[in-house]
């Protein structure tokens, strides 16, 4: 090994300090919200003066938090259906262009991924204007259509990545042995790309549950969505129940994430 020079020491310190700050900034706010959700006080003070479950009791009270509950159900319904429909369409689309070198395939790929970088807020307003011009009234179905467009890229991207890693010799072998293309898809391709599809579905579901830009324009009082209701609660009163919702959502996501990690190696798949 080499001797460490002064410059190497400054490098180690700089990297170490910045990485430590990075970890603190990533995880600190999440921990603080969780701690705040157990406070006894009416305000969002950290550290909480005393711990209690009062805000969780309030949150689960079917009368006092009825609007939150219906917004949460709407969000789960929209995210669930958008993910399922998006998965079927995205997997088919990924199959259509995988291993095709033609420009048409690249254009399709870029188009299907475009909601990831085009401002979804612009899209939300465009969708509102579109539905209003063609005369469709706001409903959960509209929200599903809007969410479908912005979350499909997640499934499309992970599926395409899985397909690219799939050895084409496997399908050739199965075809040579007399299997139909559909049989080959069902028994070879699908099982091998299933973890990629599942990881994409997970990201799609989470991002739909979290979607503000599209829901902002397409939901109304009747079709309230969870993030929009939380935003309202934050803007008006800084209601401590928001912290309790955060606690429930974080716990639910963490469980879902651990399950997904066991099933699909999610974390490895995401970090490449």
């Amino acid at each position, binding site marked *: 090994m080499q001797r460490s020079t002064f410059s190497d020491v400054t490098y180690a310190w700089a990297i170490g300090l910045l990485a430590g700050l990075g970890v603190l900034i990533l995880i600190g706010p999440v921990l603080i919200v969780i701690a705040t959700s157990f406070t006894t006080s009416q305000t969002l003070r950290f550290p909480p003066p005393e711990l209690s479950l009062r805000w969780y009791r309030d949150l689960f009270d079917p009368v006092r938090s009825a609007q939150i509950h219906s917004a949460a159900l709407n969000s789960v319904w929209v995210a669930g259906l958008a993910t399922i429909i998006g998965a079927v369409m995205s997997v088919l689309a990924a199959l259509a262009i995988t291993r095709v070198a033609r420009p048409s395939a690249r254009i399709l790929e870029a188009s299907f991924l475009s909601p990831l970088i085009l401002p979804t807020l612009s899209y939300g307003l465009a969708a509102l204007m579109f539905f209003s011009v063609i005369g469709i009234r706001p409903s959960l179905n509209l929200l599903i259509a809007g969410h479908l467009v912005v979350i499909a890229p997640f499934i499309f991207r992970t599926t395409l990545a899985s397909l690219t890693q799939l050895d084409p010799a496997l399908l050739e072998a199965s075809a040579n042995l007399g299997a139909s*293309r*559909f049989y080959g898809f069902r028994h070879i391709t699908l099982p091998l790309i299933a973890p990629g599809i599942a990881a994409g579905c997970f990201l799609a579901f989470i991002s739909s549950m979290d979607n503000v830009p599209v829901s902002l324009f397409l939901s109304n009082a009747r079709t309230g969505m969870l993030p929009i209701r939380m935003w309202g609660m934050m803007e008006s009163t800084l209601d401590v129940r928001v912290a309790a919702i955060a606690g429930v959502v974080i716990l639910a996501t963490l469980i879902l994430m651990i399950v997904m990690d066991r099933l699909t190696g999610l974390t490895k798949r995401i970090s490449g």
Partner: protein
Amino acid sequence: MAGGTGDKVDWRLAAPLGLTYLAFFAAPFAILLGISFYADAEQTRLGLDSWAKFYGDAFYLKVIVDTLKLGVFAVTATTLLAYPLALLFRAVGPRAQRVLIFIILMPLLTSVVIRTFAWIVILAREGVVNQTLLALGITAAPLNLLQTELGLVIALTQIEMPLMLLPLLTVMNQMDQNLVDASRALGASKWRTFFRVILPLTLPGWIAGATLVFASATTAFISQSVIGGARLVYLPALIWQQSMVVYNWPFAAVASLTLLFTVLAGIMALGWLGRFARTG
């Protein structure tokens, strides 16, 4: 039906998603563009008035510049923290890597609204940062961190960091360790190795991450409005206000398309930077 071996795009398979995008993605943007050419809020008269009003007013031009600046600040801050984190991730063992990836993914999985909410608790006048500063005697009076650009950039750094980190980790994982070792063995310092070997090799990942961070920070309506407050105005707030408060749809459409152009300009600049860096 199996796909994956043909040399042509199988249009029957691409049709469901393609047609959905045409109907629910391309068509809305076409309508948006169309509505921007109405001259008045009541949409009775065609004309370029909305465009002229927007681009002829110093206030709106400043909003565009501020939005661009916010995106650049967010990219800079996430870059400054994401590179050291990615290097740390590379240096530690598999067990620590699993912990780190959970820490990295945690914010991504905790809803933008909740993350913004967390920063209110931290940055408020009686928040964690001010309490600490007061207790240590660094400041005599609580600082105003909410409703400042600095506070917003700090919050956005956390909110957008996973978007920078994930592509960066992917390219770092694929980077050949031999090249780093060779640079060290040939006598380059760690700094030199970082700037001359690691940075150029990981540039594609950085560009992917920077694109996502830039696109996301410039459109982060909730964070901008809750942390920035009424004093700081960015394009998303303008779009919201013009469309849902004032009901001037043509003007909102112009603002919305401007946001789209702003993001596309940022993305193209990043792409150009990538090409320039490879050849230059």
